[in-house]
């Protein structure tokens, strides 16, 4: 039950969407792009966000594309997480996605909504960061393509009226060895205490994290430390943890110390498996 009223628009092209946004913005309608809508609906009900107009982007063809092309996997931002899982063109993304929310909710939650949302876990972005994916962004100035690490820094870096249209992931990344682990406060359901997604690209380990800080991130410096050839796993791990880019979360899901404990154990497990494989 949403107490406030808003207008609902469903444009069919990128240009129309951008134009609408501009126009509504000028009319002080505080427009919001609307994808799965799960977060918008829940935050509106609690009066935690304001809008007088939502622009549903699900009818925009490009936002629904799901193509495994010659070079790239194209994922429309309005694809639901279960659609992406079922097609399973990107196994690491499938693996991360399957742990987000629950199956029924993922029939509604979209890739773009998860990445652009306010709820700070945004777990679906992790695989995209690890694979140097490209983000296709539309807006009043037309369409632009940015590398993931530029487009997403803690949050989506979107200018006024801009929105995520799709992501492009190079095909060679899709088949690389990967692991993802989501550890929760207890058992199998709930927000992450930490989620780790890891990829082995040409012998180098890449790792991205959600739930550790108040935003998801991939840290090159942490990866460098993990990939150093000197020192035991433990030492490399400790060196890596020094480069966590922000204070570790200390909240109802868990304390900062415990998160670090869990992080270290989980990373150790991942690295051990890979290094054992490598040495075998």
């Amino acid at each position, binding site marked *: 039950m949403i107490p406030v009223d808003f207008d609902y628009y469903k444009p069919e092209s990128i240009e129309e969407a951008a134009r609408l946004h501009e126009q509504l913005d000028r009319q002080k309608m505080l427009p919001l792009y609307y994808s799965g809508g799960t977060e918008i609906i829940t935050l509106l009900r609690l*009066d935690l966000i304001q809008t007088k107009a939502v622009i549903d982007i699900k009818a925009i063809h490009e936002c629904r594309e799901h193509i495994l092309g010659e070079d790239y996997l194209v994922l429309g931002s309005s694809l639901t997480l279960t659609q992406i899982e079922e097609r399973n063109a990107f196994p690491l993304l499938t693996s991360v996605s399957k742990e987000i929310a629950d199956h029924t909710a993922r029939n509604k939650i979209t890739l773009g909504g998860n990445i652009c949302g306010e709820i700070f876990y945004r777990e679906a972005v992790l695989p995209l960061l690890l694979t140097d994916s490209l983000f296709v962004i539309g807006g009043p100035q037309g369409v632009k393509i940015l590398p993931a690490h530029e487009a997403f820094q803690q949050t989506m870096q979107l200018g006024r009226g801009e929105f995520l249209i799709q992501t492009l992931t190079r095909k060679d990344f899709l088949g690389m060895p990967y692991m993802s682990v989501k550890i929760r406060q207890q058992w199998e359901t709930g927000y992450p205490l930490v989620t780790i997604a890891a990829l082995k690209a040409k012998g180098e380990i890449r790792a991205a994290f959600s739930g550790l800080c108040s935003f998801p991130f991939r840290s090159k410096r942490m990866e460098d430390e993990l990939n150093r050839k000197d020192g035991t796993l433990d030492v490399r791990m400790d060196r890596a943890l020094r480069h966590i880019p922000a204070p570790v979360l200390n909240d109802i899901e868990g304390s900062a110390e415990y998160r670090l404990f869990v992080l270290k154990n989980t990373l150790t497990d991942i690295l051990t498996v890979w290094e054992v494989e490598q040495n075998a």
Partner: protein
Amino acid sequence: MNIIGKSVIRKEAPDKVTGKARYTDDFSSAGIYHARLVTSPFAHALIKSIDTREAEKVSGVRAILTGEGLPLTGEEITDRPPLAQGKVRHHGEAVCLVVAEKLDKAALAASLIKVDYEPLSAVNSPSQAYQAGAPLVHEHVEHYKRGQNVYPEPGTNIAHKTKIRKGDLSRGIGESAVFVEGRYSFGPSDHAAIETRSCTAEIRADGDVLITSSSQAPFMIKKLIGSYFDIEAGKIIVKTPLVGGAYGGKASVQWEFLAFIASRAVGGKRVKLRYMREEDILTAPCHIGLDATIRLGCTSEGILKSAEILYLFDGGAYADKSPDLCRAGAVDCTGPYHIEHIWCDSYCLYTNHPYPAPFRGFAHSEVLFAFERTMDLLAKKLGMDPLELRFKNAILPGHTTPTQVLVNKSNVGDVRGCIQRLKDIMEEEWEPNAGHDPRKVRAAGIACVWKNSTIDTNASSGVILTFNPDGSVNLMSGVVEIGTGTKTILAQMLAEKLRLPVEMIHVKMTVDTQTTPEHWKTVASRGTLMGGRAVMAAAEDAIRQIKEIASCALRVREEDLDIDSGRVFVKAEPEIGLSFKEVVYGYTYPNGNAIGGQIIGRGSYILRNMTNIDKETGAGRPGPEWAVGAQAVQVEFDTRDCTYRILKAISVVDIGRVLNERAARGQVMGAMSMGLSFAGRETFYFDEMGRVLNFQLRTYRPIRYGEQPKYVVEFVNTPHVEAPFGARGAGEHGLLGMPAALANALSIAAGVEMIHLPLIPELIWRTLQEGKR
């Protein structure tokens, strides 16, 4: 007939799988108004001002209410304004109520009300509340009206204290050779029924008040609205349709007062109030928290001699039922053991937390967590098997309970029988091998449980039976169908007694206090005992009438008649008789003369010889019988990560005669699930200001599908002589030992004593870290 014990499908099952089953919020009517709350964001604060001007401008707003001028409410102590007056005492406390034509407008207006607060420091635990110099949650408890057996202490946060003095503690200590002491604590948590509390209220032109509520206590609503708002009880009619889960949380009366004053404010129009989940968690009463200290002494052979117990219950911001919970925890302050010397002080303390309602088990799983953990400490110290220690000390006929009730074969179940059976099952089900993973260990923890129900000494239950022209029977009882299947079980009892197929019994599912006879409250697993006895009495009444009419019609003596399969007949010559059809609407002779009329059976039952407990010693008979059980939980623990899986949970419960096998199992397993969820992950997280940080199901997370262990349930059958067919209560016992058993299992697995709940991996990790220091 052989209906008792059969797994008869619940009567309302077809409705429940087709969406036809209706709960309070499912009823609507054109033109109904909606109410919406404004609640406090602070746990303790003065209300400086309330500005409703913007809210009043919202179209369709009909009334905005604040606490001023409203009577105080509360069952044990009348300390609670329905809407805050001058001060808020817990996060989520109701402050204003908006009534509007449409729900969205009510919500919009509610969001526009500006309340100016001046925050005060909060009392954030019962231990803090107990300390001298703690801020006072209520400045003047002495000004409040209170029940007969409640003893608040002015100038402190003590809302009530129950004392148990059995034997002579110093003698007990003298006779003891081995001692252990444990301190335990856990915070408040929630019932989290999937149906949030909701209610509609309407005042008719003649002044009749009509309430429909998702409640376990429709008759209490009637009584309390009557007394607080000075309305004759007969003018208040409360209806309760099916209830979507309750677990004690809907035994408190709260949202009904709000719906009532909302309707009163708009000229009696029908108003609906449905709590949002956030309100259901914060505003509505919760599950009680506890700080406990227990010191046990026993002989070197492990015979318990002394128990010294301090319970500090988190009574929250308002007393309501918490003095009663504190009393119940004291009455059964130990496990089901024979201990000659018991000293227990059980306090109910005001804090700035949401206040508690009863919770499945009524303070028993809570105190048993502390007590049964201490039993394990003792077993460890003695080097004795925990089951053996419990077996040795099990309470038996001839012993007395903490409130000095003499135990006989009927009033307490068979503890030793349960322990014995548990031991066998554990051996059968035990899979000690954790496989090849050296990090994993497996361990089992056990707990023994018992529970009596401290219910009002004059609690009663009534049943009316009416017959239909086809010879079938309508059963009307004030028991609310909250999911326990009690109404179906009553139908089984009636079918058995009347020797009719159970399909011939039509159960009235909804309760309507105007036409349904009273059943005190649908709590404490007493529906089958009290409702059942009333059914039996009503059936006897009906049978007598059937025989009376038949004896005239057949010209035989009543004693010579019997009934079976819808017929009344002559015992010696069964072919001479009449079908119920021919009798239950009166018998008509061939010439047209008629006798009798529709048969209406009636029966009622009141618990016998219940007594209030003595203020100084606790001596008294607070409830009719103790059902007992023995439980075990097996875990697989990861020694590095401190995570664990629950592999198995076992309950052996003495429930007397099993009335409906599958339903009883379902009750026990469901309760076990709730107990493991409570013990394993549920609690409110408070900030230092006393605010609850997890007030949605996203962050307050009950157990989900796939997280559950394998459940094993078995029954021991020691009849409770006074109960129909010898049945004992079964709705709660599955829960009682789960927290203790899980904590005992994890303490063994992790090699460290777990003394808090919930048992999340971080807590185990932290406890281990502290141990290392």
